């Protein structure tokens, strides 16, 4: 678009009273991937740093940074410059996602603790309880390792659905994808997890 315009017979550029972020957002709306790179170059350290500060996790901060810039790429029309700069917008979106991540982690911890307490109170006896706790810990570790190997989009869908208590529809809304796509991602993720978890056991049995 830019180069086409520069070949026009009368070329002028005039700016009257617009916000400095205007051109960047206009290019994002036009689908200019260079604008996404420019936005990343300007704001990635701010987004990543804030996400890491709130979540205390570099890995979670990477996921959040990816989500924030994808959201900017997919919905640049959501930025309302009459209410604040692009930098402020990214700050609010990052903070909100980071807070959500902290809440999900907190809920997951509570659930794990409750599950642990319930398993301790079953009538397996002391030895049975210890063996079961060890087995549960092993499987939990195995599950977490398997989840870490999933592609980012599947991992995010899985985390929302199973650790964030989200329905299919809520997962779809959160990720900005159709409900059918959310279901497919979750199905793929679960199938892959099953393979990853079962593979060592199948190997052991072979």
């Amino acid at each position, binding site marked *: *678009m830019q180069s*086409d*315009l520069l070949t*026009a*017979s009368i*070329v*002028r*550029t*005039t*700016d*009257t009273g*617009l916000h400095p972020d*205007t*051109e960047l*957002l*206009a290019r994002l*709306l*036009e*689908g*200019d991937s260079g604008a*996404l*790179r420019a936005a990343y170059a300007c704001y*990635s*350290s701010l987004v*990543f*740093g*804030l996400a*890491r500060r*709130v979540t205390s996790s570099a890995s979670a901060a*990477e996921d959040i*940074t*990816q989500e924030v*810039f*994808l959201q900017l*790429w*997919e*919905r*640049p*029309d*959501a930025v*309302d*410059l*009459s*209410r*604040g700069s692009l*930098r*402020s*917008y*990214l*700050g*609010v*979106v*990052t*903070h909100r996602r980071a*807070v959500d991540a*902290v*809440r999900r982690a*907190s809920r997951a911890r509570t659930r794990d603790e409750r599950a642990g307490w319930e398993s301790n109170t079953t009538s397996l006896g002391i030895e049975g309880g210890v063996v079961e706790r060890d087995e549960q810990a092993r499987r939990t570790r195995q599950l977490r390792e398997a989840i870490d190997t999933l592609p*980012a*989009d599947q991992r995010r869908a899985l985390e929302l659905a199973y650790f964030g208590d989200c329905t299919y529809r809520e997962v779809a809304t959160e990720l900005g994808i159709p409900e059918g796509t959310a279901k497919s991602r979750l199905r793929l993720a679960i199938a892959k997890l099953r393979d990853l978890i079962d593979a060592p056991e199948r190997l052991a049995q072979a």
Partner: protein
Amino acid sequence: MNPHDESDDMNDGDTAPPDIPICAADALIAATAAPAPDDLAERIAATAATARPAGRMIALGTGAAQPIDAFCSTALELRALLLELSDAEWHAPTRTQYGTVRDLVAHLAGSEDYCTRAMARVPAVDPVADFDHPACSREVAASLAELTNDELGEAWFALSTTFAEACRNDPDTVPLSLHQLPMSIGGALVLRTFELWAHTEDICAAIGRPLPRLDGPRLSCMASRLVGAIGSLVRLPDAPGITGRVVLLGPGGGVADFGVAATGEAPGTRIVADIVDYCRVASRRISAEDLPRSVTGDDRLVAPFLAATSMFAKD
């Protein structure tokens, strides 16, 4: 999800930090900046290309409200505002030609009645007088003079409801004529939405309240219908092949090309503006000259485009 539109109060207890107000976001992100891992940019670029391939524009009108919904939401917001007005506010002078807030609401009642008659295909008695928007509302407005303020507000709302119901009974594309301008029912509803929104702003300005901010789907409906209607009318007599692109920013925004072009020809003019400001040009609340904008390319197309933008305004 637009964080600019959402409440800042999202703290649900001690388990998580509270959300930050937008005014604090700048300071917070500056204080916590840290370089992202080296390979993250490439990963994001790859995922972004899958989510939305490079070069795919976000077209103006994506996610637009239906015209009937845009009209009804705007009417409901104006009704809510009128229900809150004190007697003094009903008599506050407006910047319009009608006079006070009360006079303006009476004009709107007349406009709704005029549009409902147009829906019923009642022909204008005098086609020349039918061009005159204020005059067409005068008779009905005068007939409401004895009503109390609250009764007048409800009378306007009842007439707007009658118009909306009449529109619901016909498909969006059925042709009709308003002030001798041929248009579809959808176009008429968008025209009415522009007028209700503009006059709601007039009332807010008159009584010192903040101006209402339309939501994205409504702005998208209004701007995309407008650009669609005027797009093929905009051309330069001495350079008919030059076409333009308008990029409207903010919720409801998007990209639209205008002018008559040979297939595949790139636009020669690019205008970037805020979508609300652009709609204010359409309702003549901002003059074309005062529209904050960025223009790239052949700027000869800008004036005809903005002139066409306000050609449907009814005040």
